[in-house]
């Protein structure tokens, strides 16, 4: 019996070694690609025509969709920043998704809106609309009041009302940089292959000093440790992960906080899926699926210079909720699109990218948690020497630190949004510190999410952010 146990543990340990090696090789390839692409992008940006597009008639109209639910303390910031965007033709549609606080009234009062009678025609089925609010003096702004149906339902409602060929989804607690929209549109204007979706960089707003609510006066880092870890994490995720995948034409995730979509393709693909906990990822996967099935040429792009700032959770409880939701959404999306897996019809997405997400993203936390468990058993059974254990741990930590340092280096190369010396050192230190506890907690949350998925506990855990009133969006719960 003991012999079988030992053989199993040794076998598992070897598997973990191989798994770790393959995963880090993929990360290294993505990092190398990101470095190459970002260097090239920096040279290209010197002659990019994006400024000309801000005044050109050739630039297509865009609708900015902001879904809001109980966001009365922050919603004006995102609306104002959306209205102040430098773009030739755009409209802003706010969808009040059954807020129970004063969100709607605040928007109505601030912008002097009046109720108008408008016919609501549904290309995408949504919860009923209660009313439309409009002011002739701010003709770019329209507010829709509807019954609560979740973010996906609210976005679908905005798509139904929008008149532009493109729409940009923006979170209600976000701040869009003035040129972010035209920058995220540039790949669509510059490409000979139709670009059906394009996403930009999302950064954490906590720590920013703003004037007039929408102008960044000074960028500073927050004091909160958890936020600092997340800042490093966001830099790593956006600057090397997404840039790398983009270069392989294999993007599966564009942040719903700030992404641009071609409306016709989204409608053809059936709109955002109500009930999915990661409606942004699900949309991208279904767009791939739809276009590949129809054998239509297309691109989904990530651009590393448009920036949108958003609020991040600043305590463990809320962060845990957010991370569990993200992971549940990932599992849900992959499971709902499982017919694509290892199906040659879906090209590299089906044959490589989705399997990668299953093996390294969904199962990653399982391997990690089991790994800790088996390492301890191995150590007590005398299979693993202390030296070897420490060496392996050191390797894992150093690799993590290397990835974070490289991402901060990429940030230095590109935007240097954190300009002070103290910022650089703080970020580097937190890039090291996150390997001692923060990463493990994240893995634990993701592991929890996997268990929740299999026991059928797939509900939307509301993230209560600073200044928000907490109301669980009942209708957004996954019912699958």
């Amino acid at each position, binding site marked *: 019996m003991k012999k079988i146990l030992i053989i199993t543990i040794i076998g598992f340990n070897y598997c973990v070694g191989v798994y770790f090696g393959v995963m880090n090789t993929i990360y290294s390839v993505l990092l190398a690609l990101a470095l190459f692409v970002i260097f*090239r992008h920096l*040279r*290209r940006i*010197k*002659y990019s*025509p994006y400024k*000309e*597009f801000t005044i*050109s*008639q*050739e*630039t297509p109209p865009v609708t900015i969709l902001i879904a809001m639910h109980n966001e009365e303390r922050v919603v004006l910031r995102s609306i104002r920043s959306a209205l102040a965007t430098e773009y030739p033709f755009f409209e802003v549609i706010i969808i009040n998704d059954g807020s129970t606080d004063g969100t709607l009234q605040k928007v109505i009062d601030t912008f002097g809106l*009046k*109720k*108008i*009678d*408008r*016919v609501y*025609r549904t290309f995408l089925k949504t919860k009923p609309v209660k009313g439309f609010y409009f002011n*002739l003096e701010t003709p770019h702004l329209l507010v829709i009041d509807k019954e609560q149906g979740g973010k996906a339902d609210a976005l679908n409602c905005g798509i139904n009302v929008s008149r532009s060929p493109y729409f940009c989804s923006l979170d209600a607690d976000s701040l869009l940089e003035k040129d972010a929209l035209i920058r995220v549109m540039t790949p669509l*204007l*510059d*490409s*000979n292959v139709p670009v059906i979706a394009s996403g930009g960089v999302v950064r954490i707003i906590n720590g920013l000093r703003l004037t007039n609510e929408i102008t960044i006066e000074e960028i500073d880092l927050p004091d909160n440790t958890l936020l600092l870890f997340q800042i490093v994490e966001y830099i790593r995720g956006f600057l090397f992960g997404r840039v790398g995948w983009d270069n392989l034409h294999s993007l599966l995730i564009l942040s719903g906080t700030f992404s641009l979509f071609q409306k016709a393709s989204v409608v053809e693909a059936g709109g955002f899926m109500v009930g999915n906990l990661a409606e942004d990822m699900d949309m991208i996967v279904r767009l791939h699926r739809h276009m590949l099935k129809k054998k239509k040429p297309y691109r989904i792009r990530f651009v590393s210079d448009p920036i949108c700032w958003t609020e991040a959770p600043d305590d463990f409880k809320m962060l845990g909720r957010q991370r569990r939701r993200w992971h549940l959404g990932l599992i849900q999306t992959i499971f709902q699109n499982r017919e694509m897996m290892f199906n040659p019809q879906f090209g590299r997405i089906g044959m490589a990218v989705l399997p990668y997400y299953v093996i390294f993203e969904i199962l990653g936390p399982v391997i990690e948690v089991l790994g800790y468990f088996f390492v301890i058993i191995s150590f007590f059974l005398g299979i693993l020497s202390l*030296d*070897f254990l420490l*060496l*392996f741990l*050191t*390797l894992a930590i*150093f*690799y993590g*630190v*290397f990835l974070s*340092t*490289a991402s*901060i*280096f990429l940030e*230095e*190369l590109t935007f240097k949004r954190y300009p002070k*010396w103290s910022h*650089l050192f703080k970020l*580097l230190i937190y890039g090291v510190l996150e390997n001692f506890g923060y990463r493990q907690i994240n893995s634990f949350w993701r592991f929890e999410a996997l268990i929740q998925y299999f026991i059928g506990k797939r509900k939307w855990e509301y993230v209560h952010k600073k200044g928000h009133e907490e109301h669980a969006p009942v209708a957004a719960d996954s019912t699958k």
Partner: protein
Amino acid sequence: MQNKVIIVIIITTIAALLLLIAALFLTSVIRRVYKKRKYRKLDHLRKVFDKKIRESLETGTVLSTQSEFIASPNSEAWQAIEGVLLQLIDEERYRDEAHTLFFSLGYVWYYEKYTDYGNVQMRALSVDRLGRMKSESSVPKLIALLDENKPEIVSVVVRSLSRIGGRAALQAIVERLPVILDRSIVTRKAMGMALQAFGADAIPYLVEQKSGLDNLWIISCILDILSRLPADPRSVRLAARYLSSMNAEVRSKALKVVGRSENVRAVHNLPELVLPLLQDPVWFVRLQAIRSLRALGYEAFAPSIEKLIFDENWQVRNEAAQALIVLGERSLDIFLEILTGADGYAKESICEEIEKTNFSGRLIKNLKASDRGLQEKSRQVLEIMHSLGFSTPLSEYLEQEGDETEKELIRGMMKTGSGA
């Protein structure tokens, strides 16, 4: 033995990672220090040269003092002077002098050299700079680059040529337009943007373009570009020829060129040429036909538009409703006919447009009009709107301060109407 190999591999990897981390850290720090120093110096130099160059331009001594501005290529002084001159070239009064300085200080020569050398990005940057410097002498060199196959280069060349302007540049772009677009070397939007920079000058070249006219997609691109250039009788005459094209895209773009108020007198009986397209089998052609007729201000189209209120396509129905609203009271009979009909969608479209365009305000005012017929028709429209749930303008009017007799009339109307 096997374990030892693994341990050696791990230790080597850790050492390599450590070195990489240290290298990245040091590079970040050194880069920061270097960039900070560089930009501080550049800012300072820009201020100094801006003052000096402006002074010498004001005093007319720029030619005699230009030796002060000679710097070795890519040095900080070189970059600072380039920045200042690029700013001055956009100022009308210094344009010629800045242009001359770019040439005499060697910038044009330097960037022309790099249009042929180096990697794609360096070449594209050089082409871009020549365009920003408005270097007319570089036009032949840039034109030669139009025949390249690299989209990144050709896109920037087209843009730079449009910045420099001139007959030769325009002619070269238009001549190659069919090939460039057909091979998707430059996107239609980028081409359109470049040709717009030439303004009305581009029209004769586009109108007289002979090659590529066997390709319907090229024709539709040319028409689309013409529709964004200033209105011109030559464009209208060309577009009028394509109103009966077999291709719906071409017909739609031709309508777009034709549909401007300035064009009414350009071609004899232009609205009559457009009118049949209201019955086009393709929805976006019908949509564009309504827009064009609206722009041409041709009122006689109202009865034809009325039919499109019942069109199978919602965009066409909405456009038709908007067009009728523009005609104001003259459309009241048509409104009543639709509002008393059976098509719910058509009714809603009309009500929505009346409210959105604030025409409802005019209808409320008409309740006091001396013209009894107008008064009665306006009342009927408002009453039906109320019965269909479009009551907000009436309720809002009642909340405002105003004529009590009129308010009483509205209250009565709201009582008799069923309301939704």
